């Protein structure tokens, strides 16, 4: 079986069970990016394939998902991953199907490290900054995940991992100084259920704190 067939088989199973969430990041120089294929279960009763973890170039990734309309439904990039993937995307023609797919996907930036500078960079992505809102999904024992959205920016989100009380204090300081509004009504976050599922699955943040 070729790698194309193996990935295609996985994508067929994922399509039967639901959607595709792809997670990636910025690779080391000279190496193709690591990509995790995660099935988003949407059709109960169908077997959910285990995550597939491969190294693929962006063109190989998109070639793999080409025949599956709507895939990827969600794209998450850890750290500076979008800088790398954008460098590939921006040289493609505006009307090219790959760009359309990406634009239709829910696009998430994830920061596992936290500092004032990194928070600024997190929100500058796709202009979340101007009008950003935030909710903290806390973990027992301190820390959690901060979810950012912006009602003016469709389908773009940012997640900030918060791993200690001092980090939480730093986040709160940033939110206060930048007038980031707290999300009070979870229903106002368009994709909240899906995002919560992703956060819980990938970043383990049960419970909600103020």
């Amino acid at each position, binding site marked *: 079986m*070729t*790698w194309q067939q*193996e*990935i295609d088989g996985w994508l067929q199973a994922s399509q039967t069970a639901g959607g595709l969430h792809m997670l990636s990041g910025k690779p080391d120089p000279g*190496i*193709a990016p*690591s*990509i*995790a294929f995660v099935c988003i279960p949407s059709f109960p009763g169908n077997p959910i394939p285990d995550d597939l*973890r*491969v*190294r*693929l*170039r962006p063109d*190989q990734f998109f070639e793999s998902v080409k025949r599956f309309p709507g895939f990827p439904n969600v794209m998450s990039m850890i750290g500076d991953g979008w800088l790398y993937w954008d460098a590939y995307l921006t040289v493609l023609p505006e009307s090219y199907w790959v760009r359309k797919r990406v634009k239709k996907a829910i696009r998430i930036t994830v920061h*596992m*490290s*936290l*500092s*004032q*500078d*990194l928070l600024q960079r997190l929100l500058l992505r796709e202009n979340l900054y101007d009008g950003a809102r935030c909710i903290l999904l806390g973990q027992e*024992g*301190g*820390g959690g995940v901060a979810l950012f959205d912006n009602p003016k920016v469709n389908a773009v989100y940012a997640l900030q991992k*918060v*791993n*200690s*009380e*001092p*980090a939480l204090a*730093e986040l709160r300081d940033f939110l206060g100084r930048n007038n980031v509004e707290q999300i009070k009504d979870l229903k106002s976050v368009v994709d909240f259920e899906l995002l919560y599922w992703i956060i819980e699955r990938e970043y383990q943040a049960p419970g909600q704190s103020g």
Partner: protein
Amino acid sequence: MSRHTRPRRDAVVPALPRLNKHFDVMSRGFAREGLFLQGVYKAGSQPTLYDPAWTGQRVPEAVLRHEEVHQNLFLQTFHGVLTLILDAYGRAANAGAALEACCREQWVVQELGATYAELAFAQRVAPGDFSAGISALPSAAKGGDPYREAFDFANWLLPLDEAARRERSDPRTLVIGALCSCSMGTACLRELANSDYDDARFASWITSNSPSARLEQIGQAAGQASFLEMREVAAMRFSQGQPTLRLVRELFDELSSVMLAHVPALTAEPLTQLEGQAHAAVDRLRKNCPEFVFDVAESLRPQRTLFTESPEKRKLLDQQFRFDDLATGN
């Protein structure tokens, strides 16, 4: 004379630990070690705190204090600023021997000041964990790095006893900070500014003017009584709350005079001259090597903390969750 009738001198006056010659200070850096790395400070970088849920650190703010002391000792002392300059100069010219000597001769001073500040903080917010925190310090006696021995020297000068926990504004940490600052207050930047740079010669100068040796001399000569008096001065000065940087510098210069009165052979550069001497040293190095770039104002600006994952956790996760190449040629 029976060996029982006269106590050995080192039983009364402790000594600072010595780094053995195999201690690789350049790869070690200024990290807070333990069972797992708790945090790190790299010259000119951000104080960094690793995920305490992973490292098992129950008082992460204390580790933060530790790394902030490193940052202060790098940005606010003569020997610290020298390290930043040599680190940058080493990218444009040969400065390896001097940089190695520079890091080695300050390692104990840095870890003594940082570990004392960390444990003084932990004592206040988690007194129940304080003794365990001291016991858990890596030590040369247990085959690790001599954090415990460095702390013991500072704790001998100014014990973190029950009275310390009740003091307002933590004056003991300030006095130990002043001791570290005074020890790092060598004429290194003037020396750098006043002569053509020769790496081996300057490395030798640094070793002869070792901050660790200075700290030991000052501590042993001044002794506990003098340090308790200095604690009173610091307590009175800052009883009204958080001190500003300017006031801390003034206090450190004042306490430096008190300390050096016990060791007439030593002098310390006044902190008010730090930036000026840094500029003069950088200008001189630029004459030797025009490619060398160092922005004094930018380099001496403190950076806020980076909170991130432990490198050990990252390594374990990378091993657990491998990515297949599936023979894609990648």
